[in-house]
């Protein structure tokens, strides 16, 4: 994984709350056996009309969405299925961070393992972001703060180990394999 310490970008806003992973990437696209190219199917049922043409009203289809790296969404983003195809699709589209007031557990874990930042902010910051699509936001991972174009800055929680892995591009599997001696000891010592 590439080290990541800063994301600066315009935002795209999808204001709905409870956006589930079936919306992020519908199940019919999960028959893939690789991680590649899922960006085309990101939000497929909201993004395309029945005839396959882009729905011009959907945020990702607007010209200003091009090149945006930050998605701002309503509360409880990423609920539902454990499919890691959801962060893969968001990353493949070009997103590097998701901002919401609440992010579902499994999606959050999957995102961190792929270098997609799940950022939980307070209600006031979220309200401002939802009301100002396209705002230029600066996310500083080292300080665990984001700064709005108004100059207002807000801290966000980031678990110490996740932050360490992201900043240094550390793959969690490498760390876990470093504990194999402990794992073997545990297996041997266990009485059942």
């Amino acid at each position, binding site marked *: 994984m590439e080290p990541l310490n800063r994301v600066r970008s315009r935002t795209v806003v999808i204001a709905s709350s409870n956006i589930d992973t079936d919306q992020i990437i519908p199940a019919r696209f999960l*028959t893939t056996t690789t991680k590649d190219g899922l960006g085309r199917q990101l939000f497929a049922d909201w993004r395309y009309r029945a005839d396959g043409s882009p729905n011009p009203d959907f945020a990702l289809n607007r010209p200003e969405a091009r090149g945006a790296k930050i998605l701002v969404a309503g509360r409880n983003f990423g609920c539902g299925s454990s499919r890691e195809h959801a962060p893969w699709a968001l990353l493949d589209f070009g997103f590097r961070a998701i901002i919401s007031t609440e992010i579902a557990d*499994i999606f959050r874990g999957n995102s961190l393992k792929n270098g997609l930042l799940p950022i939980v902010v307070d209600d006031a910051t979220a309200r401002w972001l939802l009301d100002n699509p396209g705002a230029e936001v600066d996310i500083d991972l080292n300080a665990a703060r984001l700064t709005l174009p108004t100059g207002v800055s807000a801290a966000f929680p980031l678990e110490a180990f996740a932050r360490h892995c992201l900043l240094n591009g550390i793959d969690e*599997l490498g760390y*876990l394999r470093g504990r194999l001696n402990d794992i073997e000891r545990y297996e041997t010592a266990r009485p059942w």
Partner: protein
Amino acid sequence: MRTTLFDKVWAAHEVVAETADTPAVLYVDLHLIHEVTSPQAFSLLRSLGLPVRRPDRTLATMDHSTPTSTDQVFGNVPIKVDAAAKQVRQLEQNAAEFGVELFGMRDARRGIVHVISPELGATQPGMTIVCGDSHTSTHGAFGALAFGIGTTEVGHVFATQSLLQRKPKTFAVNVEGQLRPGVTAKDLILAVIGKVGVSGGTGHVFEYRGSAIRALSMDERMTVCNMSIEAGARAGMIAPDDTTFAYLEGKPRAPKAAEWDAAVARWRTFATDPGAVFDASVDIDASTLEPMITYGTNPGMVLPIGASIPDKAGDEVFDKALRYMGFHGGDAMLGKPVDVVFIGSCTNGRLADLQAAARILEGRKVAPGVRLLIVPGSQEIKRAAEAQGLADIFKAAGADWRESGCSMCLGMNGDTVAAGQYSISTSNRNFEGRQGVGARTLLVSPFTAAASAVQGRITDPREML
């Protein structure tokens, strides 16, 4: 210190305890895998030149993208969805290459991953169980700590039989009193989700407690734990008791003879100490519950079946959901038309669920114009349902009786609901497009599903019991 069931199972699997800077290394007793969320994890192993470290703790089956029509499973008709056929072949190759036991397409033990592991007795109290599927919470019915993981973590478990985890918080779901006739475990869990909300459990592990939970059979407990994730909870657990042990005794992979007694003695220790404190709790009175039905696009948008949709005009999320569903605030749920009825899934595809459906369907016919699809959770359940005459009841009623699999729960295997159609479904998610693009899903119990299939409209099953 007084600890909870969850704390005890967690502590028994902590290889390395968590610190402020590092998560715990948590040992995994049983790793269940399927064709959809494993291919990229096997690719990771291959790229690193690593084996599956404990194939003896790994079980594979195919369920999500597999067809349910007998001619595609057992006949000479190829799997119609090309990409699904590729996924099935890939799992066969991966399992063979890495020495993982696989219940393949024509195996008599195949079925939905969360149905077959309990059926085999592989799911046991006090275990940690993970799978690349959010409904892994099902296994918590046995007092196991069981949760869904992503594909990267599937790779971690392959390589180390462990996961890096932060310890979740605990949440007591206290359900006292007796369910009334016609009100089921599905109605109970839908009521819990309605009360807690779809993200109320985020960061927590539920423990379902109280007299109403103790009175449930294992099939019913699995229905309850299955939907923990729909309230945002990481897992849902029920302390093992005599009901649990009676279910497991004699199952193919349950301990035998002297080992059985030792196992039961150990399993009995997995219980919350009196006076242990939970981080959060909710109380539900089972005796007041009604059959429940969802009306919106998440499982928290749920009502007693006799109620009317609330009027919250102006609430953007609510309006969007009702527009999708083609409903209006103030509408009564009873009497709304039905196009498709699906009975099955890891929520309600077990034998008790099929028996419930048969109780309503016996001697009755599916309403004209309604399609009823009944999909057993496993091949073993299929055989049992056929031996008990349930399949004959279903076929006589006009239902389509299939081979096991996830089927119409998520519509990635050829079983789908058409755009705009109303599907009364015993599955777990009513998300937009879950059962097919534009499909409108209403979640209910097997009783309500069967009753609605017969009447061709949403029906309170208590009229027909």
